[in-house]
């Protein structure tokens, strides 16, 4: 049977991994290649690199980083952050990335999902969707959560999948950084609405949160950042716990 996946997420700025809480107090956490190797050895099933650099030289740095990471690890990885054109996607995949994660650009131009899926295959296109509950409904946010859009969470997820995205990376902005657990109610509805795999993101604080996301919400993968970066939870320990609780997982 297909295994559930554990995915550490690395924030990259100017070619270095940074860690911090809610994008403030960023500390240099080392080279992306070294951290990728470490997580890969510890049993990560996949990695996500999120580029938070804001400079003109961005693409060049990112492509060379992807190429270095691809040489060092033998597990799949996704790259995201400011990717807006087919040419960018092609350069990143050619350098050795397996998937790209698209967020603001596909909200602006829905057609980009279909074009990318046709050219590179759905399996290479991850729709990253950030949602926030406004008291009555879930709204979609872009630009790193700074800008609210007209889109409704569930509708946009469904449309992104229909347009050709091969996976949905769903981040709950309400839960992100709280360590209270993933937004399992939204995720549960999402996994019964779309037929593509769903990655839960935002809110993981302990082992039980992962179990709940897999068992109750039936997600396919769980993503976490600070929990792994700050060594609060070891990937191996987490995977053993999930296995003991009858989750199909690769040890």
């Amino acid at each position, binding site marked *: 049977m297909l295994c559930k996946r554990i995915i550490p997420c690395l924030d990259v700025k100017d070619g270095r991994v940074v860690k911090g809480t809610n994008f403030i107090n960023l500390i240099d956490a080392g080279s992306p290649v070294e951290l990728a190797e470490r997580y890969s050895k510890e049993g990560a099933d996949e990695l996500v690199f999120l580029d938070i650099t804001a400079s003109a030289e961005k693409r060049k740095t990112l492509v060379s980083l992807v190429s270095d990471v691809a040489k060092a690890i033998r597990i799949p990885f996704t790259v995201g952050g400011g990717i807006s054109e087919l040419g960018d996607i092609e350069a990143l995949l050619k350098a050795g990335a397996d998937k790209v994660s698209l967020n603001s650009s596909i909200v602006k131009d829905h057609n980009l999902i279909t074009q990318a899926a046709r050219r590179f295959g759905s*399996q290479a296109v991850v729709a990253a969707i950030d949602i926030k509950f406004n008291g009555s409904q879930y709204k979609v946010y872009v630009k790193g959560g700074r800008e609210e859009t007209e889109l409704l969470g569930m509708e946009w997820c469904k449309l992104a999948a229909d347009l050709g995205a*091969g996976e949905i990376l769903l981040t709950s902005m309400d839960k992100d950084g709280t360590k209270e657990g993933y937004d399992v109610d939204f995720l549960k509805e999402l996994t019964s609405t779309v037929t593509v795999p769903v990655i839960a993101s935002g809110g993981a604080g302990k082992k039980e949160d992962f179990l709940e996301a897999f068992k109750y919400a039936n997600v396919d993968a769980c993503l976490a950042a600070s929990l792994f970066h700050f060594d609060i939870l070891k990937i191996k320990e987490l995977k053993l716990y999930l296995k003991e609780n009858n989750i199909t997982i690769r040890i």
Partner: protein
Amino acid sequence: MIALIDYGAGNVASVANALTVLEEDFKITKNETEICRASKIIFPGVGEASFAIKQLHMANLFSLLRMVKKPILGICLGMQLMADHSTEGGVTCLGIFPGTVEKFDPAKTKVPHMGWNDIEITSESKLFRDIKSGEYFYFANSYYVPVSEYTTSITDNNIKFSSAMEKGNYYGVQFHPEKSGDAGLKLLKNFIELC
């Protein structure tokens, strides 16, 4: 020298990286002469079947790959293109393995089939030397080749499909050995050294 075929529909970089780790002599090419001179061929593939077949025709490789006598390993879409026909784009493929490539049914399972899944080895193959049933490999596919007499391993995604196939000098794997950690490297090494 191993010819790593780059026909514009493959994830060549990752396979090239794996071959570099294994310290193998290889050349990325779509040139007929170079492919003919190689001792072995690796035929990767990512993307859409009818587009990939069109690329093979444009590079004059379709007939060559049908007739080649040296060991050739199709990876992912590369293996699917070795079947008779694919329902993805309704295209005639190389016709090495009998049968038609089908799409996973979204009513029964998630599509794409994405992530680590185990294999059940169903018949002896040099590819699996020192690799046991139950080993995990990384998959990323929406289509699959049904089980046939040439299937050497089966994987279960709510439907059982061919995760590896073999017929004479033709080998195929549905998963990505170049992305499957140590087991994947082992399988590539087996292809290079034993097949």
